């Protein structure tokens, strides 16, 4: 027993391959960079404010709080709505519709490409080609052909994310062992059944994962298209207030977007872990 204890004590707490972080230290370490960021910001902001009380670049916390109050809790005099909520609703609607369409499209295409050689032959090179078009470069084309309304923005999100989702699902479907598919056939599955009753459910968690990773790109396309042509939306607002150098407002919006993105990521990750425990099996007790 004594020996064992000694052995354990030898494991480093922080350095090296074998480091074993105690729980408390883990939390502290995780929070440390955030704390540093806040401290650096506060100090820098303080210095600049002292030099010039009108400074707009690094507004003090009080100004940021006021901007938050103004955008999130007070009705805008001109439009009669609370701006932050209005913007959030518009942006999330675009993001949601775009991701939904591209997930469904990418999933069905990827699934069928992965399993059916005919579909693969027909579309693999085309999808690869499409996925190499930089989506932002064709934004003008989208705005010209779909208008500067909602459709153009949603189309950008779809075009920007669906090739990647398609290719990822295609690879996932192709990775299903041949044995698994033959087994399903010997269990009486039809060809349709193999695709939609055997492989389909196996690939769903992969789809959620892919969507989660594509969300970063989707936000980029959303904000870019809102910045260029829009009447509302989180991206629109940020680029609007930039004209007045309202750094406080920008900070509020960026923090809010980051929080939303973080929530979406966390939610999808938890969904996979809870709903699909077989997908990434951890060591269980």
């Amino acid at each position, binding site marked *: 027993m004594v020996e064992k204890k000694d052995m354990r004590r030898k494991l480093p707490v922080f350095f090296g391959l074998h480091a074993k972080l105690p729980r408390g230290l883990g939390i502290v370490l995780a929070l440390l960079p955030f704390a540093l960021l806040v401290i650096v910001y506060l100090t820098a902001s303080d210095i600049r404010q002292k030099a010039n009380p009108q400074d707009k670049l690094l507004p003090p916390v009080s100004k940021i709080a006021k901007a938050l109050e103004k955008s999130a809790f007070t009705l805008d005099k001109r439009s009669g709505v609370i701006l932050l909520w209005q913007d959030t609703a518009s942006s999330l609607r675009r993001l949601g519709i775009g991701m939904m369409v591209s997930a469904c499209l990418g999933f069905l295409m990827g699934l069928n490409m992965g399993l059916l050689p005919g579909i693969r032959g027909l579309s693999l090179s085309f999808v690869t080609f499409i996925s190499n078009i930089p989506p932002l470069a064709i934004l003008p084309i989208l705005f010209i052909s779909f208008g500067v309304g909602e459709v153009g923005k949603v189309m950008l999100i779809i075009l920007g994310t669906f090739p990647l989702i398609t290719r990822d699902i295609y690879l996932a479907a192709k990775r299903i062992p041949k044995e698994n598919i033959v087994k399903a*056939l010997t269990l009486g599955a039809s060809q349709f059944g193999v695709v939609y009753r055997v492989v389909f459910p196996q690939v769903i968690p992969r789809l959620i994962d892919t969507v989660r990773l594509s969300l970063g790109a989707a936000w980029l396309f959303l904000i870019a298209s809102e910045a260029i042509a829009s009447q509302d939306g989180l991206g629109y607002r940020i680029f609007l207030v930039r004209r007045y150098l309202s750094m406080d407002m920008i900070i509020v919006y960026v923090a809010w977007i980051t929080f939303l993105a973080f929530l979406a990521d966390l939610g999808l990750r938890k969904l996979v872990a809870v709903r699909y425990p077989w997908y990434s099996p951890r060591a269980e007790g």
Partner: protein
Amino acid sequence: MTENTPFLLYLEDVQKQYGEKIVLDDIDLAVKQGAFCTVVGPSGCGKSTLLRLILGQEQATSGRIFMEGVPIALPSPDRGIVYQRYSLFPHLTILDNTMLGKQLSVPFWTSLRRKKTARDEAMHYLESVHLGAHAKKYPHQLSGGMQQRVAIAQALIMKPKILLMDEPFGALDPGTREAMQLLILELWEAHGMTIFFVTHDLEEAVFLGTRILVLSQYYRHESASRESSGQGARIVADYPLNTRKARSTRVKETAKFGRLIQRIRYDGFDPEYRQDAREFNLKHTDSFITFTE
């Protein structure tokens, strides 16, 4: 031995090539209903290939394969399969894995209606492989031996005419392996099954089978021009074994058992010793040419 004896499985001049390489050459084989047919051979000789051809997973380059007189096509429920791995569906619980066949073989809506009966039947099969207590678990939570038992139950529920097994116990430790051997014999007798069992373990093959086939590329062909290393495997030996199976693995220690294994080693696994191709297929009662002592 007459031509019109109904064979369950019948292979005629089956040959399989991958590109230029001949893997299986001129395989003739007839398997009777109820046989426990084991297949052994040197590594890479084409045992799995032969099994895949019978399954319909791959097509023979030439020759024909019949099930009860009907040429086989793609994989179908009358031929069950248990692989060494990947037989189970990772996204389904053990119970769902076992009842999957009952569900996939009917339209989706019907399968929903019949879920209860399918579940009861699956439970029954799971209990027959002693896994009733694990019905709710996922495959990754089970040991290798348990997973193979699920795979067997999953195949059995379809009541296949023949059960094909490709080294099903190959990845198990010796103790589990022996328990599985006894279990499969028990199930084989209980269900009156026909089994086609590929293994690289000679002892296992002799212990389990009512008939053993030795597949090998080590034989002498009548046309000497053919390069001996590039020739396809054939069935170089075919012995009947005990039909009344012993319930104990003790038989493995007997001298007779050992002698037979030595003999088979000689027949198929020794590159130095090569039989003449003309002498093949003569040793078993189900062979094509009548064999007289």
